[in-house]
């Protein structure tokens, strides 16, 4: 033991190497935090900059509108992010949103027992997602095909069940949730903040979240380390469907009804939010705080762009270009380069 002590208490020798800027452990954390910070910063600057377009922009009111609209995307993107974390991709979120919405209006409606039935609807969504997940893990169907197919199947079932137009209205509980206020702040915004914090902790700090990271990072090693690879992987799809189903409910509360295409607008953006937020599309790396930033950034962008008085073609081009610029700013290489530059100047 004494010899080990010697090794560790030998500052003179090891400092030589460390002093050369070997502060990797700490710097990494910063790089990740900085990425997240920069996303929020870009969103914030966009809002401020948009004053040029309209004096009503940049107001608290506008920020609330953006957060309200972003709340849908944030929730779907959480599930999508978990699936991406385990090397998958969930193309069924659109249909799962529809499933949640359709079941909410058809089963609960304006005067059903919402408190009892909402968990039931969510359980159905979770089960549907779990089935996709098991198709991926036990049948070995590639996630892309599995979720695309299960999405088509769920949509088709909704179509058959509703005969094309979903009947029924929004439960009052959901309407209140989506349009109510809490201490002068829209309830959804309060929910959004709580959800963002809770889900970030869930993904990054729980045993489950850690295990998902590991499975996504190296499934073989995860199996060798004794993790329940397949159960964990399948569960991520279940959670994703659950989130999507809940977004279906939120949309019912927001728009006072369900339509079969209500989820379509969220598929690509949910993936985009996750990736812009710094997660790797190849799995194993992801931080939900970044995803929330990505979702808010995307929503801010579309909100501002829709207010520009230009031909749709130009608006679309501007949207794409700003996304690309944001991605360029968010590259990790850029931080490393900046860091190195700063480091050099200091020494």
């Amino acid at each position, binding site marked *: 033991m004494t*010899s080990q002590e*010697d090794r560790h208490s030998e500052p003179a020798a090891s400092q030589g190497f460390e002093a050369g800027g070997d502060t990797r452990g700490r710097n*990494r954390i910063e790089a990740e935090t900085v990425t997240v910070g920069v996303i929020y910063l870009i969103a914030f600057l966009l809002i401020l900059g948009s004053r040029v377009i309209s004096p009503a922009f940049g107001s608290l009111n506008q920020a609330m509108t953006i957060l309200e609209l972003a709340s849908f995307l944030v929730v779907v993107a959480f599930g999508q992010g978990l699936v991406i974390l385990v090397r998958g991709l969930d193309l069924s979120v659109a249909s799962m949103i529809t499933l949640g919405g359709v079941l909410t209006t058809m089963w609960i409606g304006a005067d059903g027992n919402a408190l009892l039935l909402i968990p039931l609807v969510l359980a159905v969504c979770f089960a549907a997602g779990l089935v996709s997940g098991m198709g991926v893990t036990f049948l070995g169907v590639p996630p892309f095909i599995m979720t695309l197919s299960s999405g088509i199947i769920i949509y088709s079932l909704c179509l058959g069940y509703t005969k094309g137009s979903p009947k029924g209205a929004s439960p009052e509980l959901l309407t209140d949730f989506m349009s109510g206020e809490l201490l002068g702040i829209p309830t959804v915004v309060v929910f959004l903040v709580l959800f963002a914090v809770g889900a970030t902790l869930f993904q990054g700090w*729980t045993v489950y979240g*850690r295990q998902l*990271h*590991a499975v996504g*990072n190296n499934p073989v*090693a995860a*199996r060798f380390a004794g993790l329940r690879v397949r159960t964990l992987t399948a569960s991520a799809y279940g959670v994703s469907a659950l989130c999507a189903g809940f977004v279906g409910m939120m949309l019912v509360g927001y728009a006072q009804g369900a339509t079969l295409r209500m989820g379509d607008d969220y598929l690509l953006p949910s993936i985009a939010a996750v990736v812009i937020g710094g997660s790797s599309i190849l799995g194993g790396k992801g931080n939900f705080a970044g995803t929330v930033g990505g979702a808010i950034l995307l929503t801010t962008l579309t909100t501002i762009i829709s207010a520009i008085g230009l031909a749709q073609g130009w608006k679309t081009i501007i949207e794409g270009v700003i996304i690309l610029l944001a991605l360029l700013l968010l590259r990790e290489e850029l931080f490393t380069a900046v860091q190195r530059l700063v480091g050099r100047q200091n020494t």
Partner: protein
Amino acid sequence: MSLDLRAGEIHAILGENGAGKSTLVKILSGVVAPDHGEIRLNGERFAPASILGARSRGISTGFQEISLVPNLSVAENLLLPRLGKGSAGLNSRRRTWDAAGELLARFDVTDIDLSRPVRTLSLAEKQRIEIVRALSHARNVLVLDEPSASLADTRWLFEQVRKQARAGVGVLYISHRLSEVRSLCSRGTVLRNGRSIDTVDLGGVSDDEIFQMMVGRSPDTAFPERHPSSISAQPLVDLRGVDAGQIQDASLKIHSGEILGVAALEGQGQRDLFHAIAGLTPVERGEIRIVGEPAHLTSRRAAMKTGPGIAFVPEERKVEGIFSGLRTAGNIAISTMAGCSRFGFVNHAIEQASVAKSAEQVELQPRYLGFRISELSGGNQQKAVIARALQSQARILVLFDPTRGVDVGTKQAVYKVVREFADHGGAVLIYSSELPELVHLCDRCSVVYGGQITEEFTGAEITEQALIAGVVGHRGDQPAVAEAG
């Protein structure tokens, strides 16, 4: 850091894990650009910007973390990035095979099928292909980073390296096996914390002195003592006529308090034997009893959960061992997370405390715990994988070549932990490609040859000569069998 290498010289680079050996290799091969300083090759300035740049100047490298592409065939991997061209200017399979076959023949590799995707090779086979590729491009300098780490039989390697040296190529040879270095190299440069401490004539210094230079302290070379008396009569693990993968009719017992070694050349089925006990290869026939009860080791998890618990250190660190995106602490704790949490949330205080303990056992410096594991040197990654196995409260420890790439000093620490583990009533099964390790560490040692357990030695019977004879299929009680593997 400075170093001079002469033509025709085999020059050793020595240093503890994380000293910067691999980094030096990467600089030489154009993968990493140096911050300061310059390299001169035959007197000319040499600043390679890529592997190809280095190759064009006759410098070629065999990397520590095998750099073959798993989905391509052996032949293609040998020739990348330019495959054999046919008449139409397109790649021709036959030309590729011919050219690659020539290479294999030139470097005396006869037992690896050119058409096999590298994915299906064993680690040792991959290592040999990696070496052949390096050999094939070496005109001026050959750099080999721990080429022998997973080779049970190093004769082939030594012969090839010497041949290169005789042809005037300067060889930089990195290994943690001092005996190897001594028999191969004339001079050696010792690195510590990224600096070259000294270049010495290996003939003129003792192991202790080298060690002193490497880590700045005296070595602790004694193997831990055996305690044959503490071995219980009841086996903890009892294999009865097990068929699994390449393994046929394997029977063996591991008692608590005992370290059972397995000696074998590459690819004799020892991997399946270990995997069967770890729950990774299904048992097709026969049974495995744990503490006398038949056990169904249908998955890794089942094996971990079974009565006394089975911990496992896998062979291929990069593929089966590490989670490159996770921090080192997370890597060590991943199998035992439930014990580090409160209400499903990871409790950092508990995690840090428990991880720190096993990290210390394998001499992994605490400062590395916060790093992403991909930023650690190969040896330090290996230490983390061993630490993970130690973390679990298992009483059965299955180690497949655990000290691969681990520096001399740390090896002793690992031996000590393993022995302590046995002394506390655990059972250890260990395979090693380094026979001396088995000789000094094990209470008993089995030999696996051709998918079967052919021999078993106990206590003083375990000698290098006996094991070498055994692993090549030459049984003590039988006339010699000519071929080896």
